[in-house]
């Protein structure tokens, strides 16, 4: 922005200098000394003044445009072909659907310093390609693509100039997005190792799941198990993986079905500790395409539920207090924002299209001034293409890595709660001490809540895994199957359900997942108490005891080595 301002000021100063010289033409003589020419006639003067003013305006416009380009350095982005003659809704659909890149989509490079509206195609061999993510050193690009229209989209990697293309994943499902992660470290690893994350429908859940793998595509691990489906992974600077999760009733906070939209959650890159991040108690909408600015704000796009195009308003929350700092950065009734990207100065690159045109418009790339909430300048726009997912080619800081207790050799994890009476929900607050007697653990079956209408409703395919006692202080301690979507219900003295989770959680192998209460205030910290449940062995629920023992023995044997 500062560069832009500087360029504008230079142009204005140049214009002022020109205007001051309106009466006389001043040219250098043969010795390089300025000499004043004789005055022109009034008519000639007026003509010259018009020419001069026109030149000044053109100069300012040119300066603004080139300044904007300079502000972004080299860009890589996706171009999705605009199909002419389609209705606005159709334009929405083919413009920027995050779920399926249409045929002809491609990744291009654009260098504002050398070209204007001229791009270099980096994925010419692909039937469709898009969603570029830049490596931390700014030298490689991760993207999804397919050579043939019938192939599933997979993860690929290439250098920023398009060379050294290689395929990373080779799974059965179709990948929608892939990003670089920082390092993961486990006790059985020699050193921390880099991974990538991607969302894929290989898990069979309608909305898809998040996976991670090594950079060479090996060691694939599923890290989300929510039957509602997740998407839009983004690595925060503090090592958490932010993602968008479809919800049924949870977001709505009521019993309405199928219109939950998405909320933003975080999970560690080892799949542990899934936790709400933002938009958990707000009106239904789709929150997607999050990114984090250097000053700690997370920007995402919010669009109405049911909109085929996920373009919408730009919303910001502070990473440090994401559940309570929501503010709308830009909401334009005449247009849609798409795929914000944080620039080093705290401002954004963002795609925008004007929806008031008859064709529905095409996305172009703009700089966005966060302080004013406006698009500052157009960087690139080719009306034949939707220009989206822009990234600036430059190194960026590597987010913190993760050290993990997860051990893939085991099949169970643990879940403990400090006090089930702690709750911020009305029904939870109304439970008097001592009333919670037991706890039911329910596992989600196949199928997704999004398709079926939300957790707990007919068709979701739930199975009661078991029922265990709750201690007098409200604590409980469970040993549960890992990598399994679970819901918990507290049961009263007469067998009545006192409180039921509206969404699913899971534990990873060897994870000790701790909860303070049953849907407590998410900013509450645990009371410093040694709770009764932790004085005993955990209650095993839904565990194949023999298999678990065998794995445990093998595990201990390997640990002792």
């Amino acid at each position, binding site marked *: 922005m500062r560069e832009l301002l500087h360029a504008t000021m230079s142009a204005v100063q140049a214009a002022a200098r020109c205007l001051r010289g309106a009466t006389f033409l001043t040219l250098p003589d043969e010795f390089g000394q300025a000499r004043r020419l004789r005055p022109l006639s009034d008519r000639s003067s007026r003509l010259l003044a018009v020419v001069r003013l026109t030149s000044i305006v053109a100069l300012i416009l040119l300066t603004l445009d080139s300044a904007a380009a300079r502000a972004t350095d080299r860009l890589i982005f996706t171009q999705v072909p605009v199909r002419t003659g389609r209705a606005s809704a159709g334009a929405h659909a083919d413009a920027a659907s995050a779920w399926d890149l249409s045929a002809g989509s491609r990744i291009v490079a654009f260098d504002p310093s050398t070209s204007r509206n001229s791009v270099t195609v980096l994925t010419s061999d692909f039937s469709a390609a898009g969603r570029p993510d830049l490596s931390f050193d700014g030298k490689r690009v991760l993207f999804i693509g397919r050579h043939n229209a019938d192939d599933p989209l997979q993860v690929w990697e290439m250098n920023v100039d398009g060379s050294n293309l290689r395929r990373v994943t080779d799974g059965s499902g179709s990948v929608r997005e892939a990003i670089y992660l920082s390092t993961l470290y486990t006790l059985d690893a020699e050193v921390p190792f880099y991974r990538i994350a991607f969302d894929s429908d290989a898990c069979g859940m309608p909305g898809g799941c998040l996976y991670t793998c090594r950079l060479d595509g090996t060691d694939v691990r599923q890290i989300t198990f929510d039957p509602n489906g997740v998407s839009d992974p983004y690595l925060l600077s503090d090592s958490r993986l932010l993602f968008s999760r479809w919800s049924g009733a949870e977001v709505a906070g009521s019993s309405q079905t199928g219109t939950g939209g998405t909320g933003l959650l975080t999970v560690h890159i080892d799949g542990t500790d899934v936790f709400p991040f933002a938009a958990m108690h707000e009106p239904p909408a789709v929150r997607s395409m999050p990114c984090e600015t250097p000053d700690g704000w997370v920007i995402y796009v919010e669009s109405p539920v049911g909109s085929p195009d996920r373009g919408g308003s730009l919303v910001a929350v502070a990473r440090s207090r994401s559940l309570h700092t929501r503010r709308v950065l830009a909401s334009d009734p005449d247009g849609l924002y798409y795929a914000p990207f944080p620039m080093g100065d705290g401002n954004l690159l963002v795609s925008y299209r004007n929806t008031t045109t008859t064709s529905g418009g095409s996305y172009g790339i703009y700089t966005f001034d966060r302080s004013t909430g406006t698009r500052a300048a157009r960087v690139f726009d080719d009306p034949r293409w939707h220009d989206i997912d822009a990234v600036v080619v430059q190194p960026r800081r590597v987010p913190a890595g993760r050290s993990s207790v997860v051990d893939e050799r085991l099949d169970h994890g643990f879940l403990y709660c400090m006090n089930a009476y702690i709750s911020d929900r009305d029904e939870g607050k109304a439970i008097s001490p001592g009333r919670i007697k037991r706890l039911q653990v329910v596992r989600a079956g196949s199928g997704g809540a999004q398709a079926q209408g939300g957790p707990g409703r007919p068709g979701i395919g739930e199975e009661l895994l078991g029922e265990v006692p709750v201690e007098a202080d409200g604590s409980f301690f469970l040993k549960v199957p890992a990598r399994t979507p679970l819901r918990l219900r507290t049961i009263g003295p007469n067998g009545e359900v006192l409180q039921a989770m509206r969404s699913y959680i899971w534990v990873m192998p060897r994870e000790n997942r701790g909860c303070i209460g049953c849907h407590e205030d998410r900013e509450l910290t*645990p009371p410093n108490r040694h709770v009764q449940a932790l004085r005993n062995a955990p209650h095993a629920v839904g565990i194949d005891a023999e298999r678990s023992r065998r794995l445990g023995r093998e595990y201990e044997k390997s640990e002792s080595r």
Partner: protein
Amino acid sequence: MTASRLKVLTTLSTLVVLSTLGDVRAQSDELPSYVGQAVCQECHSPGHGRRPCLLGTIAEHNRAYQTLGKLEAGHIALVSGVTEKPEESRICLGCHATGSDAGPRWMRSTFNIADGVQCETCHGAGSLHVATYSSSGGNPSFDRKRRISRGNRSECVACHVNRPSHQLVLEQGYRVPPVHRLYKTPVNLVVSPDGGLLYVVCEHGNSLIVVDRKTRRVLDEITVGKRPHDVAVSPDGQRLYVTNRQSDSLTVIDATSRSVVTEVPVGDEPHGVLTDATGKCLFVVNTQEDSISVLDTKTLTEVTRLPAGCGPWSLALRPDGNFIYVTNVRPRPGRFRESPRSEITVINADQGIITTRFIAADANMLEGVAFIPGTDVALITLLRTKNLVPITRLAQGWTITNGLGIVWPDGRVDQVLLDAPADHFPDPMDVAVSPDGKYAFVTSGGSDQVAVVDVGKLLSMITAASDRDREAIFPNHLGTSTQFVIKRVAVGRNPRGVVFSRDGRFAYVANSLDDSVAVIETTGYTVVNQIDLGGPDEITEIRRGERLFHSADNAFGRQFSCRSCHPDGHINGLTHDIEADGVGLSPVDNRTLRGIVDTGPFKWEGTNPSLSRQCGPRLAVFFTRLHPFSPSELTALARYISTIERPPNRYRPSEGLTLAQYRGKVVFERTVANDGTLLRPEQRCVHCHHGPYQTSRGKTPIRNKMWFDELVDLEFFDLFDRRSFGELGMYYYLQTGRPPNVLDVPHLTNVYDSPPYLHNGSANTLEEIWTLFNIVDDHGMTKDLTRQQFNDLIAYLKSL
């Protein structure tokens, strides 16, 4: 206290001491002293008929002492946290000389310590042996066995082991860079009464730096004692008082001439210092002694010593001048697995007595304290460590939260957090309130920031809140701080002390690991200057490690640093529930980091052979949860930790062990019980606790496992009250024949200053180790000890 009363007290004390010395002389005849090798050789040499020593390397052993004078010895001392000269260090002398454990009092005039490792190292002090032989008239059949140890080659390993410090210096050629001595490390500061000068205490520089506040330039640097911590200025501005935590002293400085007037002794590890409103009385908190010295500023003598809480840290004078509040970093001893309760000690400044003790529940590490001008309300910095909650995650403030306490005149202590949900405020270390009482500045040592707190908003929020909100929500809520924290200002590395200028226009922050003072302009809360205190630009490996140790950048959400549990490299007095050995099980006592490099293996399970291992993979996986330290970071961190100094032992008189301590040493080293039966090796203290650090540096089985140390079928305990964890829990293990614990043998140096004890912190005192938790005499044979023997043993342990 009147002068005449003081005289009487002094006289009485002298009489007591003299009578004790007389007692020593009288009874020491029954206890062996060291006679020296020359006396031994009078008989035990080839020409005298007695069997000479079979050891063929006597001469080499004798030269061991000489090596302590070499340059390398100084470097070894530096990298192993030894504060004394090697020739004077009990640790070094433990292997390089004889009799150092007992001290000069127990060395006869014939003994020469410069003879290095002598006969009595293996055979024990020989005076009784010599005396018995003499009294027998030279009869060769006198009862030698009762008077001298035969010596055992297996004991050689107490010294002949690989020591990381020695390997580092002697084999790898490591040298502490000379520039390392030049760091300043400013920790606390004060503004002169006229507002013109800033006095900055520099812990590493062992100095007080005088800064011109107007020009922001260093005017002078005054050398004080070792590791100064705090400074107070007399109300008239003429005198400066600096506490020296390593020297256990107070340096008195003439402010006009900027010269040291005198250095007077105080208690163990003095930290905070403060004068009363009149300037007549001086209060010094002795952190490791849990006491407060009250000094007369005229005579500079200690008038009285008051009992503080645990780990008194700093002080503040109430604006009316009547009371002084003292913060305490360690919680009071309590029941096992009770949440920590820390004390704010209240002193009547006029009478020099403690009037009351306020309690901050669920809090520890109470450090900074400041009153809000014009009120009787004080603010204190604190941690709310969740030591009873398993460390299984860090989100939601799961492990440590950081906050402020509001101490009301009636003793109520409300608490609020300075953390945000994903951005903590680690290690709040000091607080200062602006002269107009509107703003409080709090330093965060772990995040290099200062929080600007709107005091009005804070107090309004609390006074308007319900009791439930005050007691249960605010102390545990990560979102509350947005209501009263206006801004976080980035200052320098590891900010500690903070002070306002007299006019309140500026605040000054000691950036301890940048050797600078940040100047914050208080209208815009921006740093307008960094005053360079003159430390070197070069950052040594040790210094880099020190920065890592004090930074929370390597913990998820910047929740804590190493220092959060190890203030001054020591302990926080808590036990923690670590995930690795089971949730809810096996709580582990936090152990000191002072002078530990040669005491490995580490961890209570003894599974980490080196500091690098200790701070490496498992720390990242089970504590910080972010990427582990890089190899170079790990080396730097381990290097720094190894240099954390072990303060001199205050229970150990410079002239040597007292009579009781020496008797305790005899009990410690005994091989036969009181009834004459031979003790099994594992029943002897020295079997595991030997060598200069009193550790075998290995693991040993010990039957002090309790029911919460391991996951077992607890139906048995359903019949009982599980809270009676002690004997009942151990009884279960003993009766069922379950395997004993295999634990690291802890070193015992300065063991007196690191309660609680045992691997799970279940013993609040040294005495409780045996009175409550040694049911079958598996942790040394103690059931036959007389009360005096037991007390002597404790006295000896405290001297180690």
